């Protein structure tokens, strides 16, 4: 019974932890531009993140080594360094976007000046990370982030044409606006698979002291947690497809996203939606700050972990603080957080293969993994999704240029 409870807790945290500012921006924009036509792409993105999270979690549990350890071991110092730098640039853009997202949500809730809220956001995140143990951070943000499920209720109440919704899950390519459609497809997969998720997931397995007995928990967490997170992504797209698409509204701010809950559910819906966004994005900000610190420590072999006292993993501690400050410095310049989000997602797609290939290699190494090495199913999915990731990582930048970042 206790076991089931534990699994449920972990899964709940995973749902809230999956959706971040990138998912919100791309799912809502895709719904507003193409209605329900891109729902099937969300399924592909979720499949990829489930496959690679399960794999890197299993590697971490069995070998006590996280993703950036595997990158260094498999790619060596030089190529590994390219992966580290690329991953860190994306982490920086991501944390900047998330911090900006927190401030935007706070602004809609409280209405103070944006830059003041940025300072509050960073200080708040710093204090929370410093004061709360790892498990609590993950759970508080995961659970409160679940109030985003209000978007699922909103989508239902907007009474979309369910036949069109269903046909959106069938893979297809439209007859016009193909480049724009492809750009959003790349963005949706990128948003579902941002690299910090695997960095954080694998390091988190070690933080939480999972042992091979927890491999079932790892699988359940990855499959159910991320699938339900994907459900939330779909809800956002269906909401936007039912509300914005028919009216030709292009959501350019987080306020428009909130409107998606306010129109069908009133003020209560709006407040719940903003609280959900605040915590989901806040959790993602913490995950990406930690990821930045994990990556550098793991690449150079330094002591790391929130489970250590700050003085016992000092370079790791300085690392996450530096991530918060750097993210703050990027958004405080006045760049549009939504635009930073779009860039972070598109560039993350480009950097992804250098993260996923080492995971796949290590997970297949029997000397390392013993009987927990990849089976046939994990490899069929692993190689299949890697092929998809390779294609979109090549296509991402050209599509970004052709479509002028989705502006058409």
């Amino acid at each position: 019974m206790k076991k089931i409870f534990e699994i449920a807790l972990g899964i709940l945290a995973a749902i809230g932890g999956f959706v971040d500012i990138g998912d919100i921006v791309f799912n809502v924009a895709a719904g507003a531009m193409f209605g329900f036509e891109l729902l099937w792409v969300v399924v592909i993105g979720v499949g990829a993140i489930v496959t690679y999270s399960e794999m890197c979690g299993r590697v971490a549990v069995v070998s006590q080594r996280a993703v950036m350890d595997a990158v260094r071991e498999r790619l060596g110092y030089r190529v590994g360094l390219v992966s580290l730098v690329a991953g860190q640039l994306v982490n920086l853009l991501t944390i900047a976007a998330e911090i900006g997202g927190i401030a935007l949500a706070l602004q809609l809730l409280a209405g103070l000046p944006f830059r003041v809220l940025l300072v509050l956001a960073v200080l708040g995140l710093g204090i929370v990370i410093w004061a709360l143990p790892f498990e609590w951070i993950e759970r508080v943000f995961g659970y409160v982030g679940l109030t985003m499920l209000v978007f699922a209720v909103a989508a239902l109440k907007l009474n979309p044409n369910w036949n069109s919704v269903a046909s959106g899950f069938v893979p297809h390519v439209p007859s016009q606006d193909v480049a724009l459609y492809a750009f959003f497809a790349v963005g949706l997969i990128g948003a579902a698979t941002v690299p910090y998720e695997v960095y954080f997931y694998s390091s988190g397995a070690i933080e939480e002291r999972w042992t091979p007995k927890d491999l079932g928990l790892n699988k359940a967490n990855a499959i159910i947690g991320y699938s339900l997170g994907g459900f939330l992504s779909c809800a956002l797209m269906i909401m936007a497809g039912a509300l914005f698409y028919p009216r030709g509204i292009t959501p350019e701010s987080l306020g428009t996203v909130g409107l998606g809950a306010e129109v069908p559910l009133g003020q209560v819906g709006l407040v719940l939606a903003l609280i959900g966004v605040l915590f989901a994005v806040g959790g993602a900000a913490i995950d990406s700050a930690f990821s930045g610190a994990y990556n550098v420590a793991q690449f150079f072999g330094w002591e790391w972990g929130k489970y250590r006292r700050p003085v016992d993993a000092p370079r790791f501690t300085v690392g996450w603080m530096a991530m918060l400050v750097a993210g703050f410095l990027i958004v405080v310049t006045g760049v549009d957080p939504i635009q930073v989000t779009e860039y972070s997602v598109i560039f993350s797609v480009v950097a992804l293969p250098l993260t996923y290939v080492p995971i796949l290699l290590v997970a297949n190494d029997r000397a390392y993994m013993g009987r927990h090495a990849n089976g046939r199913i994990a490899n069929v999915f692993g190689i299949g999704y890697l092929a998809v990731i390779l294609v979109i990582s090549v296509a991402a930048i050209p599509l970004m240029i052709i479509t002028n970042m989705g502006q058409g």
Partner: protein
Amino acid sequence: MSDAIDLGLGLVDHQLIDSEGRRCGKVDDLELTGIQEGRLQVAEILVGRRGAVHVPWEEVAKVDSGVHLKRTAAELRLGRGDVRARKLVAWIPGAQ
């Protein structure tokens, strides 16, 4: 794990862990001896890029996914960057 390991895949770039379970660097390079004599042997682990710290192979207790050492990082002069960084965080309440 069997006795034979692939030096490139199984040793170089792997995590070093000291006798107290602390992570204290990576195997950045290896020094091999006995090449002329035909009795090749790993003599030292080199840690760090420039001005590397040399850890004699006798200090290795066990090799699995990481390389476990027989003594503490401080005794082997490893993980010295943590000593410097510790000063940056030690003053904050709750850091100890």
